[in-house]
């Protein structure tokens, strides 16, 4: 009887607290891998990730989600970071969690455009992501086609504008900031525009930023706000989609990568950053409708040159500092507070 009791007592103790022990062990293990939080779409990142794995032998664990969710994760995990890298979205998302990012001087610091660099080297632009307007030429006549942000208030588009939620999607937030500042600024005028815009959205946002171009291409929506890469990819593959660079201006938002502070595999993360910014990888970006950030690489001929994207300056630090406030104002518009 006593033997059994002792045995069972031990067993129950193991059962109740084994999980904690396992958790501790898990936290400590260090192996040949790296965990990548990314919000880019899989079809162009997958081959790059595979190449990195093949070259270095480092296993990449993937966590794919909208940028906003990834940032929320990194914040929630700040006492025990579970990711090593964040890749995707705009630089503002990185500014929000700037204290949680590890500074790193990568191998190609001198080869990249100055405006795609963080002064503290905590994030590193890997491409430039302007925001564009798209429309379906089958459903929107040449005459009605939007030329800029102002045209999105046209009542014929009411309820048929595909725009993702800036709260979740990094690119949708970029669009919010660009719209706000090219249509008046962070003031009454700018927010009047935003309020009218939200009204024209009928307070509805789509589930993910890819729908910004897919929606109009499939005829579900008339117009959309999209990141350039997706819009061009669809337009070039023959979809019913026309890409418009807004007359009021877009922006040269750097889309960065960053190393998460106190990650479990920081050394491997550094290798990944070096890899993505290498001439090898950067020279392939043109094929996937991305704007490279290296000075030694020419943009493909089909792309509108960087200089023609307007002169709105993407002030990452200011935007990062004001992001909460801007998003809360946006949310209040959507929620109808």
């Amino acid at each position: 009887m006593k033997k059994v009791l002792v045995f069972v007592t031990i067993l129950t103790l193991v059962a109740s607290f084994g999980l904690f022990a396992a958790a501790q062990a898990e936290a400590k293990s260090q192996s040949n891998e790296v965990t990548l939080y990314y919000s880019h779409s899989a079809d162009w990142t997958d081959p790059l990730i595979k190449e990195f794995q093949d070259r270095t032998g480092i296993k990449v664990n993937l966590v794919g989600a909208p940028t906003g969710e990834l940032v929320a994760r990194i914040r929630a995990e700040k006492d025990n970071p579970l990711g090593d890298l964040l890749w995707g979205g705009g630089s503002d998302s990185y500014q929000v969690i700037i204290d949680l990012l590890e500074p790193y001087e990568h191998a190609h610091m001198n080869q990249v455009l100055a405006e795609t660099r963080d002064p503290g080297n905590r994030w590193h632009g890997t491409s430039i992501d302007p925001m564009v307007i798209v429309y379906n030429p089958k459903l929107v006549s040449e005459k009605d086609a939007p030329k800029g942000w102002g045209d999105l208030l046209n009542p014929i588009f009411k309820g048929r504008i595909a725009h993702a939620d800036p709260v979740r999607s990094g690119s949708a937030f970029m669009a919010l900031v660009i719209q706000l500042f090219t249509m008046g600024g962070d003031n009454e005028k700018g927010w009047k525009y935003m309020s009218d815009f939200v009204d024209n959205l009928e307070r509805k946002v789509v589930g993910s930023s890819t729908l910004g171009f897919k929606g109009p291409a499939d005829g579900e929506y008339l117009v959309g706000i999209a990141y350039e890469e997706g819009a061009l990819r669809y337009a070039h593959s023959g979809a019913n989609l026309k890409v418009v660079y807004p007359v009021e201006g877009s922006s040269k938002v750097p889309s960065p990568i960053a190393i998460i502070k106190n990650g479990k595999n920081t050394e491997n993360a550094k290798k990944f950053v070096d890899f993505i910014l290498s001439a090898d990888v950067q020279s392939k970006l043109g094929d996937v409708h991305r704007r490279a950030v290296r000075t030694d690489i020419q943009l493909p001929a089909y792309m509108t040159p960087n200089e023609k994207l307007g002169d709105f300056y993407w002030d990452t630090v200011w935007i990062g500092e004001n992001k909460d406030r801007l998003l809360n104002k946006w949310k209040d518009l959507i929620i109808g507070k």
Partner: protein
Amino acid sequence: MNDQSAWTRIVNRIGFWGIVIITIFALAILFLLYPLFGMIARSFQGSEDRIFSLAAYKDFFRLPYYYRTLKHSFAVSSLTTLFAVLLGVPFGFIVARYNIPGKKILNAMVVISLLSPPFIGAYSWIVLLGRNGFITNLLRLINIEIPTIYGFRGLLLVFTLKLFPFVYMYVQGALQSFDNSLEEAAENLGVSGVKKLLTVTFPLILPTITAGAVIVFMTSMADLGTPLLIGEGYKVLPVLVYEEYMGELGGDAVMASAMSVIIIICTLSVLLLQRFTIGRRSYSMSGLNPPPIKKLKTGPFIILTTLSYLIAIIALSPQITTLVTSFIKTQGPIFVPAFSVKSYTDVWYKLSANITRTFLYSTIAMVFMIIIGIFTSYVIVRRKSNLTAVLDFILMSPYVIPGSVIGIILIMAFNKPPFMLAGTASILIISYTIRKIPYIIRSSTGILYQLDLSSEEASINLGVPPLKTFFKITAVLMLPGVISGGILSWISTINELSSTMILYSGRTGTISVAIYTEIIKDGYGTAAALASILTLATVLSLFLFNRLTKGKGSVI
């Protein structure tokens, strides 16, 4: 004796089962009550100067952005329930009562579609009917534009097809145990045909139908994966909870908590409403004298057989679609007309760890469930007391808590020291165990109630002490039943998305998470390959389940 002293004395005093009860209570408090009450408390948190506030609830019912989702949830779940009943009752009735050939095949098809996760249904219907869907494109060739399946319609379609099997199987079960003499009595008294069905048969199986309907309602109300994939602008409550929690702003934990409480109240009220009205009048029948299976005339036979198989095939079409598309070549997001195993090789280099993890975690969770199921049901049934009744009640509570809410309460409770479990495999395993514990306890106590007490008494009488008797007789006799319950839980665990979505990290992503992220990243080929692997695992374990229960086990 002296040096073993205090500890041994305490152990001897409370006895083995006392220790078991204390341990289970400790686990339930740590992993269920503490997180749950933490969330409820948080939902009443005001701004910093006020400790107690109803602000979140007031905002919820004041602002259309919030309360609209509750209306959406109710609209989707109510209509889903209605359609599931309209589809499930006649289908179940026809298959149970008429000579439809291949009933076993039909039932197997329905069970497989029931046990596979709803988000695979969502994904498949996107592949078939979505903006770039297979059928959509075919119809487009002949210039027919079908309405979008995103939003309300899509949710209704996916949920109805996914959940009507619950009603179907409940109806079948009820009709199989139906006492035919009741119908004969009605005929003898001069009532026959449809009138007999409406006055005798359906009133008697109505409690069963409503029990199935409640499950449909609760499941559709709690699901997160489907509305995330297919709901788009049409936001339902669980999606809003998820977004509110996962927002870049660091999430509004108070609002997310308040909304979680509101969902729980909704599911709980529906359950209680059923239990205390129609459910009360459940009639138990022997099943010794089931109604004979009627032969149909050629015309109706062909029509009803075709109809039955059509319904079953539509229900199973997500699995068929994923299997087929997993072998179709993809070019970026677009499927092209050629066969390829590239989706599988992609899965192999990219997501093989997810597969290993899924099966590992589910298996560990299953072992926990079986151990906890055996011990807990024993104390609930054989050591009946107020204490064990409370335990039973606590452990049943996850039944009304949606998976995403379980995820949120766990991450909120265990993302800070001393319980630093966020991002570990342990927290996923804990979540799986908690989610399935009500089912395991129900099935285990059911088994134990059926086990005759005299087997245990005979063993004690023959000189084997009670504790040893438990291990030699009771546990051994319970095991097959509990294991088959465990297999069913294993199946739903490998398919779990709602709580995994919130609890996974880069090193603990499972197949279902990978399917979800692949879909939102346009990786439809790999998603299909992963979904097919899940379906295969589901079918194989169902096969095992059937072997274990000799075909008599019920999956609901």
